[in-house]
């Protein structure tokens, strides 16, 4: 992961996190939004414009790539680089969570 990717995606927005997380299984934009709704009990909604913009940006930056096309809908899936970024984010969020519960992280 180079400096530019790190600067843009660590930390990433909540929508970006959910989009990248969901793309561990190939799917299209609307599918992702439905999955996010289920995962979060409706607490997180991703707008169509945000979805499209984030997918385009992530594809350009190599975090996800085109997987296949179904009736004009493009399906994407996460790349190796995407996994690396996602792992980094998950570790960061775990640290936040532990610290918020009063736990310290051992160096």
């Amino acid at each position: 992961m180079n400096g530019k990717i790190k600067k843009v995606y660590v930390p990433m927005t909540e929508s970006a996190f959910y989009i990248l997380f969901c793309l561990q299984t190939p799917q299209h934009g609307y599918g992702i939004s439905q999955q996010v709704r289920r995962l979060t009990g409706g607490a997180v909604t991703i707008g169509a414009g945000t979805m499209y913009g984030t997918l385009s940006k992530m594809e350009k930056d190599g975090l996800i790539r085109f997987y296949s096309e179904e009736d004009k809908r493009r399906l994407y899936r996460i790349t190796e680089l995407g996994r690396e970024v996602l792992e980094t984010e998950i570790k960061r969020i775990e640290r936040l969570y532990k610290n918020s519960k009063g736990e310290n992280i051992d160096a």
Partner: protein
Amino acid sequence: MRKTKIRFFTIADYEDEELWLRKQHQNGWKLVKMTSPCFYTFEECEPEDVVYRLDFKNGEQTEEYLQMLQDFGWEYFFHLFGWLYFRKPASAAKTEGEEELFSDNTSRVDMAEHVTRTRLIPLMVIFLCCVIPNLINAMNGVMGRLSTFFGFFFGVMFGIYLFMIIYSGIKLNRIRAKYKD
């Protein structure tokens, strides 16, 4: 029945335009098309609360993009100079978030910056490279007998451009500031 309303919105007024169009639909007038710079054609309809949204894509909209918007329940009905017009009945949105094209501030700031880059900056280039030199030429009488006419014409253009650039620049900056964390 159809009617045309005159209303001028600059490139920085898209949020106001959305609210205005929503209000028209609540009053039983749905937008059919818009003719530059300020003519809105409406068609009479059942009054309904319909959310209007504008996106700026500058000719980059793909089939995939329109399909995705449609999947999210947006009716795409018109585009003009890169501005895409979408609408969705408020009753079809289960949450407030579903009434938005952009669900986080990052993408709202991106939109304002996209408009600044692709619309405001070219306006400034035309102003500096065309309007001002022509106005100076006309004032110096370089254009012969037509100098008075061109002087007047470019004088008016100067005023319009100056107003548009300052007004839109300030407003786009304000939109960016509003959504920046």
